[in-house]
Every structure is written in C-alpha cells, then in structure tokens.
C-alpha cells in the first residue's frame, strides 16, 4: 500500500528562537498594560497602531526580511516565536498582521525593487497596513472565477469591479488586489494579475459590511474606472494565480489558526478556579492536550518550511484541525463553566466572553480556506483526486 505519509517530524525551536521568546515576553509585559484596550477579546484582529509601531521599533515586524528593507534577517522560526507570543499574550497585533504575514513576503518575492524600497521599510516600522483583495461577491472558495477587471490603458490599468470581506480596508493603506488583466471570466487561472492598490486612489469606494456580532471588520471595496499606474503591477502580468497561491500558503500555516480564541481557554482556567471537580478537570486537560498537539504539529510545519520544504498539505491539515478545535472550544468551555465555575461574578463575565467567542466561531472555518476546501487539498494529498 502506498499512500503519501503525513508525518509531522517533532521539531525543536532552536535556542536563539527560545531566547527571543524571553525578550518578546518581557516586551509584552511592559507594553500591554499601558495600551488602551478597545477590545477585551484581543487577538490578531484587534488593532493598535501604537502597539504595531512599538513592535516595529524592536525589529519584530518583517523579522525575516533583508536588512536593506528594514528587516532583521532572522529565521522563519524566530518569526514563529514572535507570532505565537503575540497570540498567547493577547497582543493587539491586528494592524500590521496581514502585511507581516503575507503582503510583505509577497512583495519580497515577486515585487519590483521600487515597490520593495517604497513599502517594506514602512511595514517593518509598524506604520503601513494591508488588506487582502481576493474574494468577490461571486468568488469565494472558487477564487479563480474573479471578475474584477484591470484593463490596460496608457501608463497603467483601469480597474472596475468589487471586492468583499476586505478586512480593515477602512483603516489600511494598501490592498493587494487580484484582478483579471486579460482573457475572459471563464479562463480560470490564466490572465490573472495582482495589483498594489493604494486605498486612497480616486475611484476606490469603501463601504462597511457589518458581521453578525455587530462588528465592522469587513468592507466592500468598489473600483469604478479607477486608474492604477503600471508600476503597481506585482510580478508579471498573468502570474497572479501562482502568486496568490503562494500567498495562501502563508495565510494558512500559522499558529493564529488555533490560537485565535486562546483567551477563552485562559478565562476558563480562571473561572474554574484552582481545584475544579474531577470531571471538569479532566475535560480541561483534554482541551489542553488538543491544543498542545496542534502546537506540536504547527511547529513541525514551521520546521519543514525552515528546511526549505513547502508543506502545503500539512498546513491545510493543521488549519482544518485547528479551526475546528477553535470552534469546539467556546462550546466546551461554556458547558463546563455553567456546571463548575466558582463564583457568580466570574460566571457572568465568562459567559460574556464565551458568548462572543461562540458568535465569532463560524468565521474560523471559513476564512483563509473553508473546511471543505482544505479537505479537498488533503484528499488530493492522499491521492484521492
């Protein structure tokens, strides 16, 4: 029998990465209490430009990038440690998150020298933020069906179309936008390109899309005869699909896919008290074991990436397991807290946290690739399609 092995070889983060962890913890201990928190459910979608700038000062945004662009030329594993410490400590890292995770790396890999010099130092300083311009009203999981068109005109492109679910576009500076530069709607992967769009460009209209929890994270971004100069084309015209796929690999593999609602678990530990009943204790331990396993797998993926591999299937698998864990967590926590919390005050507060986490939970298995898309990828890895 020959099926591809889905192994996650145990991997140790190296001593220099562990040393960096200590520095990051110290920094967060000093920085976080001073920040005005707009949001007690802090995670990677909570923004604070003050925080991003402070982090940038330490050299911890774009940490792997070349020094000439403001990076620190440290390893991918150092970046992993910074990322998971931000999540584990509930830092409001949302402003720079996408730029650090995928937009910057995309520009580094495919962008022009001019684009890199203009943009990357601002990202590493924690001053320049990005949105993702992929989905459209008729293109979600089927990204290759995008309709937004960039028609070549003298000196650039005229862009018409609509992007949706564009997180943070009302705050951010740029949106890397997937557009069709040639061919027809049905041409699928051919004729797609990526444009670096300044969100202040005339012809760009940003309207809020409020989510079910009443939050304004998403936007609809409309382009009406919007002129984008040719120097804003990222990479080669027609290479958009290849580029966007590499971007999605960055988007899927990180610890934010199982650490997004870590605060729920920490709050649960708080309300259960120091000596919960046996049944509650064992369920708590089982959740912790599940999270520990996810982290082992995610660190293993980071190790593979540092070793020059591209573990796309493994990353999809971790995101699938991780987001389902995140979806289960508020439910398990709520039921446990209702039976085993120690005080009434704690309960009221905790149920608020759990209720909010429950409302956010459906998004985990949709954003960055739905469960079904991910399982398709894993099935392909198993040789089933």
């Amino acid at each position, binding site marked *: *029998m020959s*099926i591809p092995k*889905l*192994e*996650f*070889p*145990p991997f140790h983060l190296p001593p220099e990465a562990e040393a960096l*962890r200590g520095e990051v913890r110290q920094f967060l201990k000093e920085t976080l209490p001073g920040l005005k928190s707009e949001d007690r459910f802090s995670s990677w979608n909570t923004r604070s430009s003050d925080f991003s700038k402070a982090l940038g000062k330490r050299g911890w945004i774009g940490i792997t990038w070349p020094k000439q662009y403001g990076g620190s030329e440290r390893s991918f594993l150092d970046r992993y440690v910074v990322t*998971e410490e931000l999540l*584990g*400590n509930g830092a409001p890292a949302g402003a720079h998150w996408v730029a650090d995770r995928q937009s910057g790396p995309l520009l580094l890999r495919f962008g022009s020298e001019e684009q890199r010099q203009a943009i990357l130092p601002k990202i590493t300083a924690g001053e320049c933020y990005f949105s993702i311009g992929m989905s459209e009203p008729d293109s979600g999981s089927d990204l290759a069906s995008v309709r937004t068109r960039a028609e070549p005109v003298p000196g650039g492109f005229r862009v018409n179309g609509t992007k949706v679910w564009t997180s943070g576009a009302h705050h951010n500076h740029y949106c890397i936008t997937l557009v069709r530069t040639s061919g027809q709607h049905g041409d699928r992967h051919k004729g797609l390109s990526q444009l670096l769009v300044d969100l202040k460009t005339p012809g760009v209209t940003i309207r809020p899309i409020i989510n079910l929890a009443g939050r304004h994270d998403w936007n609809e971004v409309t382009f009406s005869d919007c002129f984008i100069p040719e120097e804003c084309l990222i990479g080669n015209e027609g290479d958009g699909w290849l580029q966007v796929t590499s971007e999605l690999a960055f988007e899927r593999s990180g610890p934010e896919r199982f650490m997004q609602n*870590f605060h729920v*678990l*920490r*709050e649960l*530990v*708080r309300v*259960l*008290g*120091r*000596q*919960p009943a*046996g049944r*509650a*204790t*064992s*369920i*708590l*331990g*089982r959740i*912790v*074991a*599940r*999270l*520990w*396993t*996810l*982290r*082992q*797998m995610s660190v*293993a993926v980071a190790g593979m990436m540092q070793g020059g591999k591209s573990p796309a299937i*493994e990353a999809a*698998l971790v995101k*699938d*397991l991780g987001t389902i864990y995140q979806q289960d967590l508020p439910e398990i926590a709520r039921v446990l807290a209702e039976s085993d919390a120690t005080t009434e005050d704690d309960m009221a507060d905790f149920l608020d946290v759990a209720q909010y986490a429950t409302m956010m939970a459906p998004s985990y298995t949709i954003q960055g690739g739905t469960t*079904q898309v*991910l*399982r*398709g990828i*894993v*099935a392909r*890895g*198993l*040789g*089933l*399609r």
Partner: protein
Amino acid sequence: MDHDTREMLLDTAGRFFAERCGKDIVNGVEKGVWPADFWKEIEEMGLPLTAVPEDKGGVGGTIADLMAVLRLAGANAVPVPLAETALANLLVAAAGGTPGPGPATIVLGNLSVDNGRLSGKVDRVPFASVADRFVAVANSGGKVVVAVVDKANAKVTAAPSHAGEPYGTVAFDKAACAFSGASAVSAERALELAALARAMQMAGAADKVLATTVEYSKQRVQFGRSISTFQAIQHMLAELASCVAATIASAEAASRDADEGGLTDGGSFSIAAAKTQASDFAQRICAISHQSMGAMGFTHEHILHHYTRRLWVWRRDFGSESFWGEKIGAAVAKAGPQALWPALTSSRYAA
C-alpha cells in the same frame, strides 16, 4: 543507537512484522493459540531488549528507539507482549537486575513487597495469561521496588480484552520474588512509560487504519466509479487523515521528549498529552474508517477490526483520556491562568 543503525533496525522489524504477523497469527491469538515461533523470532531479533543496555545483554537502544519499534508493532497488530516485555526488561535492568527470556508483562497498581514477598491484585493486566513472569512496580516500606514473580507464583484470572488479547486479573499473595531491586523510576513514571508505549502503538494502528481505508476506497466501485472519487468520501478520509496525523504527531513528540528528558522524568507532560490525544481521537478514527468501508469492514474476515478493536482497548490501557486529562487539568488549574501559555510552550507542567 546511531541514525543508520536505527533505520536498519526499523526497516528489518517493519518487514518482519509485515511478513510474519499475518491474519492467521492475530486471529489465532484471539482463539487462544500462542504463536511460539513468532515470539521466538522476535526474541532472536533482540526486540524485547531494544532499550536494555549492552552490558545487561541488551541492544543498547534508547527509549525513542524502543518506541519507534512499538509504533511498527502497532501498525501490524502484533498480538504478543512485545511492548510489555520490553518495558519489563527496561525496568528490571534499570533496577540492577538481568532481564530474562520469554514473554513477560508489567503489573502496575496497588502492590507491596514485604520481606521479599509481593502482595496485591491488579485488573486488566495485558497478556497476563501468556506471560512467563510478571514485573511489578511496588511499594516496599515507602521505597519503590521492581519485583519479578514467576507465573507459578501468581494467580491469573483470564479476562480477554475486547480485541481478543489475553488480558487478565493478576493476584499475588505473599508471592516469592525471583528478583527485587530498588526501582530507578517512580510508580507514576512506570505508568507514563507504559502510556507512551500504548500511544505509539496507537499511532501505528491509526496509520494502518488510514492506509487500509484509503486503499479500499480506491478499489471499491459503486455507481460505476471508485468511491474515492465521491466528494463525501474524500472529505471523510481527509478528516480521518487529520485525526491520524494528530495521533502520530503527538505520540512522536512525546517519544522525543521522553527520550531527551531521560528515563526518570523526561516528557512527563508530553506523554500525558499524547495518551490523552490518542485516546480521544481513537473513536473518530474507528468511526470514519468503518463508515467508509461499510459492511465489508465490519466482518471478522477483514483485518480492519484488528486495528479498530485494539484502538478501542488501548485507549483505556495505562490511563484513558479521562485519567491523563485529569492529571493535566489538575496541574493547569492549580497553576492558574497566567501559567497556561508558558506551560504549553515548554511542554511542561507549570511549576
């Protein structure tokens, strides 16, 4: 052992299990037939002595070497007490004794040694009915000892496991000890090592379940095409792969941590987490594989049950997910919310 030696050992053991541990042997054990030749070959390969030092007549491998062998044993439903004997030999050697030949098992529970005699009773002892000797970790006047008792001096009440393996209740009534020595590890640690062994066997079995199910789905034709081409099946198998990969990843991480941290306490937290995880995922793994393979996989004729039934039994052996989960949960609760993240990143119980 060095990397090449280990690869060679695993390659040899893997091929040996695949060739020799057929359906007849596994089904035979369930009918009460002891596969004496198969066991003899296992001994000739030195597998029960994998983690025993060379000066004690062993192979001189590490804990991780032994655990890697046990994962292969799990992947072939090896129905003899290889894990139990190898752990027994390891414990005896570490207590200053010399491992003996023949199948053995470990007895962990409420046991005491007084004046060189062992007393106590333990349920669900794996392979109790076929063991030549019992290796107990017992309390002797406040000290932990490893005591070896020949089968003639033990009372065994057979209670085969639901996987058809010869488990049973073992009672010692002032039983004479063939050997007794100060244990190098605590009773809790002995249980951890046994739990790690089961987690690795479960990883192997889970891997085999996945391979079997994927292969079947490619060959089984319904509605004019192989069922692996149906999206419903693909998504089920992708979920199965996730559960299996998580089981393997957690067991392998625990094995590494146990190895690096040393015999007496290495990887304590990781082992608890891995056994919890393996036991927790076992049901989903069994459920999806059986659903995918339909009536065929539910027959005694097919080999799938050699693995799914073992997963169902092994998840209870040496501490279930409830047992280990409670251990982790109690430590997490006691240390409080701020200690949770540092504990997770260091794979340790918070101080």
